[in-house]
């Protein structure tokens, strides 16, 4: 990311490492300010004049604080000494946050990074947010993108060629029909020639044959197009899905689930239909346009000019008209959407409405929404009916010019233009009509091209992304015993913002370890590193003495079992969910695992036993039931290392007790690493690893750590304090407040 954006008036970029503009200062007044960073100082300029200067180490920490409508950069010394250095509107937030991180990194590590390694948040060309894309999908080279896209047609080249060939042939035959019409009119109908029945019959036969051939070509075209379209769509979806699962967590976490779903389904589908419909049509329509133009100009170039010259002007006007109509219908869609939301709200909340007696208010709200929708739809229809006939008339105005001047030529009243027969005029008018079909279609092409190019950039970004956590060529499949070691591990999701700093510890096989610390201390990060969802920045994590970067990911993850706070159950039956990690397990093994996890009892009470469908995410089951299925899944998996990440945090005490029994069975004789917010849950742990702000603070048993009276002791005390029940004190009723309900006794 570029952090040299604006130098103060009269100064040069070369003087600074970073120079950012800011626009607010004291009393939220607009100013023309610059915040510049040199090797040793932070300089604050207003209107080119230096206003403040701070040595980099003037504060222990720098941060960006987001207010409601703007943000500010703050320097802090502990909790009670802080100063606002400058303020800015939110468009500069990311840049200032980045500068703060770099200075903080300097304060902790002593190295002042000169360049930011994060991606630009916005496209420098169009200004649209990049949202994790490396290249703006709206500004990416369209030719490059489309050549890649058409490259994917290679395996289906013969079928695609058949589809294109059939369409081209059909277009040629379409051009022949008006010519036959002309001969019929000029040679048989007008002279009322009844002596050449054979010729007349032959022409009629030719038209019939053309019809038959056209039908066959249509059929062949449809079949070939469908084949290409369906296979290409499937290939694209499959490739995007495969690649998505192959990407590292750091790549995945830059994108939302919704975005990835869109890329796998919507974007791939868009490309599928674009390639087979628009891709093929683009070739055919342009070809057809050229053929018709050549014939028209060769027949009569003056008439052809009359048909063609108004087209560019008309197209510009019609495009504007289209946009206006589009806006009006967009408005109708918005009001219809608002109406649906209101309806959805009211019907879902009907109990609340009835119990609060607000039926009339809701009816009124509905009436207003419904009326707005109806009015917007009426207006759109009026606009459509007023504008569209005029626009269509204008688009085909060349037709009327050709008819007028062509008729004059037919009657011999336009000597300069020459003469025409009736048949020739009919043929010419047919061609003018054929000219407008591809033109109307081509008008829509830029929009379709733009849409497809955006989808293509999104899809190719995934397909071409290099995954940063991958198996080395010399990686091994390890039979894990369970000894884990962290050796001077540094790790940060951003390289200069380490979450774990110099962490070294040993986790012995077969023992249970608890990781404790404040939120954000790095507990889950340690687990992510053991699972190798990310690679360490510095240092190493070893299992049985082997660096995990040398162990194949499949081998590693097949021997590590994880039970998380929120269990995710896939769409399917209880049986399928338990056997998810070991699909070849026998049914008896499944029941055995379910019994150990205390899941068997509730499963037998379900109407379809182990075949009961648990639905999307398992919402038909309670939190405790879902957790028991997850434990059964982990038991069946038979891992060497077990990770429990807040496994019982969202459960009530009774359910937790029952689940704990299952967990104890699961953990017997295996290396277990547990994170729990409720410290009492870790009472069984053989040892505790205490993290504080990313550093290893202490290790030891609960008793040892309590005697040490260090970080762990403070955590335990703080937790006891917050869980201690507070007796109700008589409160003075404050003015203007409603009487609060009395506490339940």
């Amino acid at each position, binding site marked *: 990311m570029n952090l040299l954006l604006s130098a103060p008036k009269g100064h040069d970029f070369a003087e600074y490492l970073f120079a950012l503009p800011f626009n607010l200062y004291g009393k939220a007044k607009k100013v023309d300010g610059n915040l510049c960073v040199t090797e040793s100082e932070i300089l604050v300029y207003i209107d080119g004049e230096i206003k403040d200067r701070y040595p980099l180490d003037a504060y222990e920490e720098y941060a960006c604080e987001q207010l409601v409508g703007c943000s500010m950069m703050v320097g802090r010394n502990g909790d*009670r000494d802080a100063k*606002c250095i400058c303020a800015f509107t939110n468009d500069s937030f990311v840049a200032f946050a980045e500068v703060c991180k770099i200075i903080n990194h300097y304060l902790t590590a002593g190295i002042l990074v000169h360049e930011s390694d994060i991606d630009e948040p916005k496209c420098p060309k169009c200004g649209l947010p990049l949202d994790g894309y490396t290249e703006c999908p*709206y500004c990416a080279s369209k030719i490059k993108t489309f050549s890649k896209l058409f490259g994917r047609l290679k395996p289906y080249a013969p079928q695609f060629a058949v589809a294109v060939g059939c369409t081209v042939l059909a277009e040629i035959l379409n051009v022949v029909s008006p010519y036959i019409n002309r001969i019929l009119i000029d040679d048989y109908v007008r002279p009322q020639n009844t002596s050449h029945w054979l010729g007349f019959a032959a022409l009629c036969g030719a038209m019939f044959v053309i019809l038959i051939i056209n039908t066959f070509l249509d059929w062949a075209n449809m079949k070939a197009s469908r084949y290409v379209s369906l296979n290409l769509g499937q290939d694209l979806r499959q490739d995007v899905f495969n690649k998505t699962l192959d990407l590292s967590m750091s790549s995945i976490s830059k994108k939302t689930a919704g975005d990835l779903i869109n890329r796998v389904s919507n974007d791939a589908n868009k490309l599928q239909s674009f390639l087979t419909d628009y891709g093929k049509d683009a070739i055919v329509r342009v070809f057809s346009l050229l053929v018709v133009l050549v014939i028209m100009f060769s027949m009569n170039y003056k008439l052809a000019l009359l048909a063609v010259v108004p087209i560019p002007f008309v197209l510009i006007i019609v495009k504007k008209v289209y946009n206006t109509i589009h806006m009006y219908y967009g408005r109708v869609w918005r009001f219809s959407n608002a109406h649906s939301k209101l309806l959805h709200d009211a019907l879902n909340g009907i109990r609340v409405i009835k119990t609060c007696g607000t039926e009339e208010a809701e009816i009124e709200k509905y009436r207003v929404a419904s009326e707005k929708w109806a009015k917007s739809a009426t207006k759109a229809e009026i606009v459509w009916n007023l504008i569209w006939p005029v626009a269509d008339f204008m688009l085909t105005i060349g037709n009327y010019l050709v008819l007028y001047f062509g008729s004059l030529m037919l009657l011999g009243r336009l000597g300069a233009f020459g003469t025409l027969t009736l048949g020739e005029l009919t043929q010419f008018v047919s061609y003018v009509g054929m000219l407008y079909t591809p033109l109307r279609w081509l008008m829509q092409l830029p929009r379709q091209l733009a849409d497809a190019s955006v989808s293509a950039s999104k899809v190719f970004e995934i397909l071409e992304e290099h995954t940063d956590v991958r198996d080395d060529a010399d990686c091994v499949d390890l039979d894990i015993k369970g000894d884990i070691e962290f050796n001077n591990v540094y790790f940060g999701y951003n390289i200069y913002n380490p979450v774990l700093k110099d962490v070294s510890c040993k986790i012995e096989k077969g023992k249970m370890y608890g990781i404790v610390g404040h939120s954000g201390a790095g507990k889950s990060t340690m687990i992510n590193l053991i699972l190798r969802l990310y690679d360490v920045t510095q240092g190493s994590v070893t299992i049985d003495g082997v660096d995990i970067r040398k162990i194949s990911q499949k081998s590693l993850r097949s021997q590590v079992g994880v039970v998380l706070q929120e269990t995710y159950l896939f769409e399917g039956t209880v049986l399928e969910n338990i056997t998810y990690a070991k699909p070849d397990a026998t049914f008896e093994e499944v029941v055995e695992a379910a019994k150990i996890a205390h899941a068997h009892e509730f499963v037998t009470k379900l109407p379809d036993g182990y075949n009961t469908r648990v639905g999307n995410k398992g919402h038909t089951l309670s939190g405790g039931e879902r957790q028991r299925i997850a434990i059964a899944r982990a038991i069946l998996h038979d891992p060497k290392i077990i990770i429990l990440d807040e496994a019982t945090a969202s459960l009530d005490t009774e359910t937790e007790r029952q689940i704990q029994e299952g967990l104890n069975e699961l953990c017997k004789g295996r290396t277990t690493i547990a994170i729990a917010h409720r410290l009492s849950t870790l009472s069984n742990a053989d040892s505790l690893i205490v993290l504080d702000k990313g550093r290893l603070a202490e290790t030891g048993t609960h008793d040892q750590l309590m005697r040490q009276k260090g970080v762990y002791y403070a955590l335990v005390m703080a937790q006891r304090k917050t869980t201690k029940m507070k007796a109700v004190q008589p409160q003075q009723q404050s003015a203007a407040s409603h009487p609060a309900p009395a506490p339940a006794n």
Partner: protein
Amino acid sequence: MDKQLLTEERFEIDRLTILDCSKLRFYKDEANFISLDYNGESYFNVRLTRLIPFYSKTTYISVAYDNADNEFCEIGVIRDMAELSEEQYKMIDEYLEYKYYMPEITKVYSIKDNSRGFIFVDMMTTSGRKTVCVRDWYSNFRMLSEKLLYCVDVDGNKYFCPDIETLDKKSMQVLEIFV
């Protein structure tokens, strides 16, 4: 036993505390943050929040601070800033204007839709003329009431127009399609 348990499980109930403006003494520290002396207690770097920012800028202002465990603690609510002394009013108002920095829209020149969920609004605001890019504009460029227009751009900057009917005719025509 049950009775004893129930008694132990009684929680303290938070009530609305309306602050007595005559006892409030806000002051700015060296770093320009606002601290407070109230009822013999001192609170460092208090957090002032407009509870109904779209309906009123000067009434129902929450005064809170973070305790040593970083927990939110509300000292109380100022019912109407008009009850403060002139000097105190000015100090609080300046702070809130900063925190809720939100330029007012005074004219809308044009709105362009890129047909991909973004619109570009060219408008005059109390902070000057600017063209802002609004993502997902059905949610981020909308009426919060019959009159109040609210706009959040892709960077999170906020703009508002308290009453769109006060805008000129051309602005209204431009807005008509979008709100």
